């Protein structure tokens, strides 16, 4: 029988503010090993290159690189340099921050299919130097804008963003 007695009391915001609470700030700290494949990818970024890998069995060219093909289940050891240009596969125009605060300037996250990789194979990044977010389109060509070489650290943020490519 659907519930007849509904138990659970919803606190209004002011009740919540006043309620007795225990405050605790989790301190969980990690240093994840990037490993062989991602480690080499990060090295590439530091040098201003987007590296990909090719599976010898299915011949897919993949980015981000991986040490094994998740579909064929064989090790991957063939590396190649991809272009730092690509195509927008999908995008969003985000007006909120991570904790749902309003942003002054929207961010434009996008999945970007990297030129040289197999069709449909992309990475997550952001778009920048966009005059009007309304003009962003799926299928648009974009190019990586890199941090100055001295400031690169071997991180995904060595690419600042991708910018629309003049046709």
């Amino acid at each position, binding site marked *: *029988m659907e519930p007849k007695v*509904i*138990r659970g009391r919803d606190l209004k915001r002011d*009740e919540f503010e006043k309620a007795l609470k225990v405050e605790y700030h*989790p301190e969980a700290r990690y240093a994840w090993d990037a490993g062989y494949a991602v480690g080499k990818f990060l090295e590439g970024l530091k040098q201003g290159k987007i590296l990909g890998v090719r599976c010898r069995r299915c011949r897919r060219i993949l980015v981000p690189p991986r040490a094994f093909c998740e579909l064929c289940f064989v090790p991957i050891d063939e590396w190649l340099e991809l272009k730092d240009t690509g195509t927008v596969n999908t995008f*969003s125009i*985000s007006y909120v921050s*991570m904790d749902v605060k309003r942003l002054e300037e929207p961010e434009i996250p996008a999945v970007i299919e990297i030129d040289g990789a197999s069709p449909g194979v992309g990475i997550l990044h952001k778009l920048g130097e966009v005059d009007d977010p309304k003009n962003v389109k799926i299928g648009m060509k974009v190019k990586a804008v890199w941090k100055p070489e001295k400031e690169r650290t071997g*991180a995904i943020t060595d690419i600042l963003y991708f910018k629309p490519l003049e046709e």
Partner: protein
Amino acid sequence: MGLNIKHKVAVVGAGMSNVMRRAEETGRELSFYAVKEALKNSGLTIEDVECVVMATAPDAFDGVHMKGEYLADGAGAFRKPYMRSYVGGGSGVFAIIHGWYMVASGMFKTCLVVAEEKMSSAQPHPQAAFNSIYDHTLERPLGVNLLWIFALEMNRYMSVHKIPLEDIALVSVKNKRNGLDHPCTQVGAEVTVKEVLESEIMAWPVHRLMVSPTSDAAAAIVIARDDIARRVSEQPVWIKGVGWNLDTAFWTNRDLYYPDYVEKAARMAYEMAGITNPRKEIHVVEPYDPFAYKELHHLEGLLLADRGKAPELLKKGVFDRDGELPSCPSGGLLGVGNPIAAAGLMKVCEIFWQLRGEAGKRQVKNNPKTGLAQAWGDLMQVGTVVILSVN
């Protein structure tokens, strides 16, 4: 995979707590409410329960490591075999699957399945905790936020099929209206397409009224092997089919316009249930709807609509409570609330009540015999499906 299943298993009781933005109660207390309610009409007592399954979403929300252990006594697991399974947002529906295999294995005769979520413990907003679901090296440094992946997927879905935003807004209108009739609702409301489209843009194309809220709640069901179920229950609801499936974590290498993993999970469940024509044989459905487009996306993945055609059926009223295939008659996550794991099990509860004709004001009109609940989670990656039937 074989289909030589030995034991039939049924649901004999269902219950849930209120669904709230900020519950006064702890997660343990909410679990206790749901369990008491589920046992009430099941014909079984806590002493009869041989094992307990728990579903609850990321520990990061509550800031409790090994949260399943923390919740155990509230879930009735004191000195009982107890396990927590986990597939992100898919966990709520996976929980009944987990309970099913515990009983169908022959190890246990009865099982209590509990799903709990207390999202309000994370302050100022639990969204921040979602950052940690992304790849720690290649994605988190970009300052990711949870809405991004939904917005990216929704945009892809809309663009590939050329679906206008208005059509997607209709899901919010339907589910929020359905939610008004749910006794536990947090966000049931009468809204118009215009209001949905004029609500603030969170991450285009996602508008505020297309997003389910954060919620606190618990839900529970009691399941039993056929011999017990027939003895204690006048109307056992049989678990006819189960399916689950997980796609690759390399989500930026997939075309997000279609959920293959949901289709595979559905096919697994249909096969087990002996269903060859789901559009005729499923009479009521609770697809997972944390965002408006997801209900449509999932109806297609469940093979209950052709690819890209769910919006048209929605417009025709097929998915209304008095339609041919009522979808989310409970109000779903958009109309009741989204206490993540509890939301999934709440959908199972709804199918249970609908099939027994006990859904009160929400009762669908087509005298349903077989229904389906589905949940989804991770990086747009996992589908969990259960098919229930009174036959």
